[in-house]
């Protein structure tokens, strides 16, 4: 009797977590995954005309740099490839790519005719033995080969992640040269990855706060050309510019476009008080949005254009507030220790990036639009001026190093706080503004 009872108990113990009598399929819940880059392979694009082989390799390398640079993907080294892609049309040997654990495969081909390139590519889901989306083809001049590669990257990124890419985009920034006490600044524009740098102004006057228009065709910036700060509007294509119409005798700075590009919101300092104004670009009519005796600046529209986030010291310390786009009562959303500034609304609309200063350190952080879920992504001697990638996934900002020899550089970080890296620029760089995906 005792033995039988013991056996019964042992059996019960062995099934301490028994499954209730099962109806239907076995149900399993997975709640923990891994955060790691997804392995992919991008063999050199197949040359379909004589002499195109060099382009094939270049294009593939830029695509690989784009994808790997996101931190979300990891390239399977070319030496590890078992299959060679010899023809764009031949079937993919999925087993060979599974063997090297490539989950995604990008195959492409390039043909050159004169100074024109034609690029086509496909994306394969290796473990599903099928193509992701359908093949695409671009054509352009050899001069624009990097843009074609970026477009391929955008398509690949989009098909794998389900979100838009950001590779075929540009950044306008302040290029800096010279020592700290005699720094020369001018506006520069470059691809998102630091390539193709060109300059939009000379360095005869200090320039600050360049901001792309939503279509990427114009840039607002602040210049001290006349001795006091004024906001200028510059056409990127023609490099022509004009002063933004604002009330006379006022210092204006910190401009930003509205999402429809018809208005500019900016700060105006007059008589020792700084407030936020909005002006219609077409008519030049300005309207005051705040009227507190404190300093209100760094305004940024929400993507729907209905609200404006800005910084103010009306509470005694610099904090972030949100108000209707037409002005009116503002709601404070930052409550943590330290000072908050330069808020920028995410293109997705869900987050606000900001600069935070606390305990002698500067941080780039994000919070929800109600101020909740604040997360600090970086920390250094001086981090400031965040700007969002067009898909709201990456933040670029300025990092300045300490000391007389310190210099400013551009960095980017994923919104998850991962993948912090420097954006290569020819010299010092600060105050980036990330433009939209190019059409």
């Amino acid at each position, binding site marked *: 009797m005792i033995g039988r009872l013991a*056996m019964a108990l042992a059996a019960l113990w062995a099934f*301490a977590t028994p*499954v209730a009598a099962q109806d239907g399929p076995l149900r*399993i819940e997975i*709640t923990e995954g891994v955060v790691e880059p997804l392995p992919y392979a991008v063999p050199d694009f197949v040359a379909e005309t004589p002499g195109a082989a060099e382009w094939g390799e*270049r294009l593939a390398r830029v695509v690989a740099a784009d994808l790997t640079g996101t931190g979300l*993907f990891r390239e399977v080294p070319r030496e590890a490839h078992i299959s060679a892609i010899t023809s764009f049309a031949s079937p993919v040997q999925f087993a060979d790519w599974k063997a090297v654990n490539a989950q995604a495969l990008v195959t492409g081909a390039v043909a050159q005719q004169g100074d024109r390139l034609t690029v086509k590519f496909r994306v394969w889901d290796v473990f599903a033995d099928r193509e992701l989306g359908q*093949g695409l083809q671009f054509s352009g001049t050899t001069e624009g080969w990097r843009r074609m590669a970026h477009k391929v990257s955008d398509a690949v990124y989009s098909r794998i992640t389900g979100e838009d890419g950001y590779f075929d985009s540009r950044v306008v920034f302040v290029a800096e040269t010279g020592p700290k006490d005699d720094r020369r600044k001018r506006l520069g524009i470059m691809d998102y990855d630091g390539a*193709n740098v060109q300059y939009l102004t000379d360095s005869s006057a200090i320039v600050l706060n360049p901001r792309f228009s939503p279509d990427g065709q114009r840039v607002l910036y602040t210049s001290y050309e006349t001795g006091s700060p004024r906001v200028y509007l510059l056409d990127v294509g023609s490099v022509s510019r004009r002063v933004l119409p604002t009330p006379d005798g006022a210092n204006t700075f910190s401009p930003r476009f509205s999402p429809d590009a018809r208005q500019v919101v900016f700060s105006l300092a007059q008589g020792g008080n700084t407030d936020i104004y909005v002006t219609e670009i077409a008519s030049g009519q300005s309207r005051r949005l705040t009227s507190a005796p404190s300093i209100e600046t760094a305004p940024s529209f929400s993507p729907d254009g209905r609200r404006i986030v800005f910084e103010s010291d009306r509470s005694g310390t610099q904090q972030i507030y949100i108000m209707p786009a037409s002005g009116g009562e503002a709601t404070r959303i930052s409550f943590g220790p330290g000072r908050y500034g330069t808020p920028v609304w995410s293109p997705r609309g869900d987050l606000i990036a900001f600069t935070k200063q606390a305990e002698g350190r500067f941080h780039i952080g994000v919070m929800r639009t109600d101020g909740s879920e604040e997360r600090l992504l970086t920390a250094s001697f001086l981090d400031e001026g965040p700007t969002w990638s067009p898909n709201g996934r990456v933040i670029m900002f300025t990092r300045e190093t300490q000391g007389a020899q310190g210099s400013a550089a551009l960095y980017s970080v994923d919104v*998850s706080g991962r993948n912090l890296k420097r954006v290569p620029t020819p010299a010092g760089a600060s105050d980036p503004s990330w433009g939209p995906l190019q059409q």
Partner: protein
Amino acid sequence: MHAGHYISGAGHVLLIAWAFLGGAFRTEPLPFEVTEVSVITGEEYAAIMAAQAPPEAAPGVDGLAEPAPESAPVPEAPAPEPPPVRPQAPPETAEPQPDRAPEAPPEAPAPEAEVADSVPELAQPEDTAILLPDATPRPEPRPADRVAPTPAPPPPPGAETAPDTVPPAQAAPEPVPEPAPEPEPEPTAPEEATTEIVTEAEERDAAPDATPRPRARPERLAAAPPPEPAAPAAPEAPAEETEDAPSPAPDDVNRSAVDEMLAEALGGGGSGTGGPPLTGAERDALRVAVQECWVVDVGSQAANVTVTLAMSLSRDGTVMQDSLRLVSSEGGEGRAVDTAYQAARRAVLRCERGGYDLPPEKYDQWRDIEMTFNPENMRVR
């Protein structure tokens, strides 16, 4: 160290107590001997004991029967209550220490640009790319033989560094040096091409309250496949029963109760679902196997979506062709759902590796599986 023993002991005591007191063995009142007892006070007890003591002093008196000492109703101490069993059984695994990401390698200083102060004309950057969707026919995947059964020869060492021969933008008067966005044509991509800097973790000892730390590691480690505890036990049970045949009648009643317990524990309890269900350990092993391949992009919209996939498995543990399908989703829509589904699907297929390790005798139990992928714990907070 002994927490397991205590918990085990407490569990056993509870089970025994339940088995005896909860009526598990009692289908009808059993015949039993009734012994009448009476409650006595301390004085009475002392008196009784005192009455027992004297016999030594008093010489035996014939005819006087001494009270039987064994009949003294000693107040029995109540059975000690089993200590309350704590509800949580297994000790939680320690929170994984956030792995400290290596500091980003210092970037090689970009070449100093020679600066000229003239306003350049901008190179015409407008798009020259033309999007031609569907311009290329899909190749018919045919079961062709391998085109190149031999591995492609590695490229010559210098092949990657194709010199940048792109002519500089003609319109730009300044010879802007190419900042070499892909400067190092390393033959092997760094394993972690990304650096991860969570600065607050470095700056403060306490866990950062605001810094995102994706919880990357599964809580349960993939332990060795659990032993099959149950299968052999089942046939033994009846065999043993036959041996103690000459047991008294009350035991027969108990035996049937024990048999019921055994049958229920082994899952055979007449459910008719074809074999015992998977044990918790077997389910865990499957769960761990899949989650090791589930790559979650914590910063994406898809990280808000919980998807449930249905699939059918062959007897060898492989997922049947075309049986994988999306059953339901919540927390998002459109592309986010599709991305979440694809990630889950890849996890299932990647970790299959020739078939999941599942007990073949329970095939009926795991032939059809519904797997829910819930990234809630992974999400950036």
